[in-house]
């Protein structure tokens, strides 16, 4: 039977009290879809409902949201659900416990999805029924889902193509998502490309310092938030899980960039997880109304005022150009500045362009898939935007000079002398921050 988007449906969210569960629940309910939040207790699920009201800034959205507990309500609610959306902790064994219960209770044509940010989708179907496996896929929203519209859709080899097509239409249509379909490979597309950069910056911080690296690869290189501030925001435990998974299960030219720095491993063991552990901190720690910065070599924290010098000249020049909207001028400075600062900035940013667009054909089908997930999921300048502002021919030269692989699509854009970024309704200026 053909599924009808207009009559979709009933969604059950497992882990409905968490940030990703409640945030995803908001996306479903905001589209007018009746949504059930399940958690260990109904009271916990109710906290998810309050979060949804707060995210939507509307009490009225609650009319579509009901709550329940796994023990009392899972079997009954799942039985007539059209979509079961799993958002419990990022722990494969724990997820499998719930999937077993879902498999036993679900109706044959219901769809089951996980919000996992990078675990193997196929592995989650081990031991499950054929029907479950055919109707199972990954829907990776980024946190917070009600704000960040980019999302990844990850079918595994056994997913029914009709199910994938239906979910893609649901996400792109009523749910208003920017959907990127990726292969079922470690960390999918966005986190694979993004955490390569984040971890590389963390590695370089050991030699160059935390504050310096964040100042060098800061917002002027096309991101709202500096890289190590981002890692603190994401959480060091999550960062470690993602880079360890990629390091162990992939083998491309950037494999070494996914090796977690030793100082991070030690500090994670000592409870330094970033913003979620304010007392111990991460790269930064707020205390006594001032900010302290980690010294990776000693593990000590020093007042920011002592270690944060004036940003490198190249960063100041790029910021001045971006502030008045001269993005091409900023990239001209990026391409032509001399010195160690400029070389290091180019190494990281050109590495991002090379690695990001280099995944085309492996993780995603087209350059625009990488661009959309980095732009709408990470809020980073899509690689193609940087290529266009640098010029494709010059980008090829810079990549060759840096000894980085040159993605085919950049060569093609250089040959055709045409822009690479292909989103006519997007202001590319929004990706540059001064």
């Amino acid at each position, binding site marked *: 039977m053909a599924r009808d988007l207009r009559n979709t449906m009933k969604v059950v969210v497992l882990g409905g009290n968490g940030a990703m569960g409640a945030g995803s629940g*908001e996306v479903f309910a*905001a589209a*007018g879809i009746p949504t059930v939040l399940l958690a260990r207790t109904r009271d916990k699920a109710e906290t998810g409902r309050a979060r949804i*009201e707060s*995210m*939507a*800034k*509307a*009490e*009225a*959205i609650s*009319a579509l949201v009901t709550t329940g507990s796994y023990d009392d309500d899972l079997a009954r609610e799942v039985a007539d659900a059209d979509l079961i959306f799993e958002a419990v902790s990022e722990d494969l064994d724990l997820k499998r416990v719930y999937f077993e219960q879902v498999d036993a209770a679900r109706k044959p044509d219901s769809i089951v999805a996980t919000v996992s940010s990078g675990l193997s989708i196929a592995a989650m179907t081990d031991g499950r029924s054929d029907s479950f496996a055919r109707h199972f896929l990954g829907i990776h929203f980024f946190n917070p889902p*009600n*704000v960040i*519209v980019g999302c990844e859709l990850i079918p595994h080899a056994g997913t029914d193509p009709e199910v994938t097509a239906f979910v893609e239409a649901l996400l792109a249509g009523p749910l*208003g998502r920017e959907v990127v379909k990726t292969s079922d490979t470690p960390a999918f597309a966005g986190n694979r490309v993004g955490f390569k950069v984040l971890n590389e910056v963390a590695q370089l911080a050991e030699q160059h310092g935390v504050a310096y690296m964040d100042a060098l690869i800061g*917002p002027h290189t096309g991101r*709202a938030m500096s890289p190590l501030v981002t890692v603190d925001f994401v959480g060091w435990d999550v960062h470690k899980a993602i880079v360890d998974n990629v390091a162990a299960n992939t083998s491309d030219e950037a494999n070494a960039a996914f090796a977690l720095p030793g100082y991070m491993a030690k500090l994670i063991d000592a409870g330094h997880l970033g913003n979620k552990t304010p007392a111990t901190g991460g790269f930064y720690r707020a205390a006594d109304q001032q900010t302290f910065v980690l010294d990776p070599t000693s593990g000590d924290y020093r007042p920011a005022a002592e270690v944060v010098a004036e940003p490198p000249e190249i960063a100041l020049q790029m*910021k001045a150009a*971006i*502030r*008045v*909207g*001269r993005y091409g001028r900023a990239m001209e400075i990026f391409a032509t500045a001399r010195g160690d600062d400029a070389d290091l900035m180019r190494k990281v940013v050109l590495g991002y362009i090379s690695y990001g667009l280099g995944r085309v054909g492996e993780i995603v089908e087209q350059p625009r898939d990488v661009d959309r997930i980095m732009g709408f999921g990470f809020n980073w300048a899509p690689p193609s935007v940087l290529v266009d502002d640098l010029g494709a021919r010059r980008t090829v030269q810079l990549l060759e000079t840096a000894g980085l692989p040159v993605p085919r699509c950049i060569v093609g854009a250089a040959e055709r002398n045409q822009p690479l970024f292909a989103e006519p*309704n*997007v*202001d590319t*200026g*929004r990706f*540059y*921050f*001064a």
Partner: protein
Amino acid sequence: MTRPVYILGGYQTDFARNWKKENKHIAALIREAVLGGFDATALAPDDVDVGHVGNFAAELYCMQGHLGAFLVDVDPALSGLPTARHEAACASGSIAVLAASAEIQANRYDCALVVGVEQMKTVNPAVGGDYLGTAAWYELEAKGVEFPFPKLFGKLGDEYDKRYGLKDEHLAHISAVNYDNAKRNPKAQTRSWYMSEEHARGEGKYNSVIGGRLKVTDCSQVTDGAVSLLLASEAFAADYAAKRGIGVESLPQILGWGHRTAPLTFADKVAESAEDRYVLPQTRRAITDALERADTDISQLSAIETHDCFTTSEYMAIDHFGLTEPGESWRAIEDGVIDFDGTLPINPSGGLIGCGHPVGATGVRQLLDAYKQVTGTAGDYQVPGATRVATLNIGGSGTTSCVFVVG
């Protein structure tokens, strides 16, 4: 017979952006709008003869005046361009269009660049509300008043209620339609926000009263944005069309305009209209002036882009445009006339409530959306077969009214 003024196209920045968070100067807003306009029309800087900027209060929001000069900053080829900045509160953008089109009609210039711009997220809402109070008679109506404008437009609703009766559910529908339309507009500020008619009808923590009878959902947004528009004389447009292998008649024109200013205080406006069937008779005159100059009957309009700074201003626009008898705007609301698929959709873009309201840019944005509708280039928010679209842009509490008919 006046000379025709053609619209060649333009560009709108994404109204969801926060330029303070991007740490950008208002020069960047103007620059993106101008370059986007050149890109959209395939015109070059040296094609332009004159530049006009509409802006309300950059001196307050950004500590920056003399905005006309920022057009010249965009490209060395623009050095020497005659420019000016125009201010008439929320109608500033339309005044810039009027000035540019008058110069084309006077045969002074052949191609004019118009930019409407406002950067408003530089200050907190209370300070911004105070700045907006300067669009009223500040000492009499705004000084020391928290959020003066919702209160003034709340009074507009009260005046309707007193004369004809007004139900808040009709205002809620206006809000819901604008938000719903904005979801189809990829440049609209609220395109990914939650909204429902139930929420707009309700009152609570997340939909509190802002002024009089107006709640959060009745209000337009605090928005950063810039919009460019390129206007041309018949000779320029004919040449432009010939180079593209199209007929000049396929390019839209500004068919008519209306421009009236009422007494500044709301109390004086109400006193003036006490014996009138229309609550804001000068706004009504601006509309009828424009329709007459365009030789257009309301039945010939495919859509209206109106000034819904608050739901009450759109409620007023419905009867003032003549969709209903005075005081009966609710009929058009109940009959679904103004809905996206109605017989005369209002604000297919989402309007000021849904698309956003960067004050000095709004009038230019309305003209650009009218252009997109009549050229069939409005994408997902295209009104099928649109041939003629009217705009209404209002400064102050119904003080300066500007109307255009595009087709």
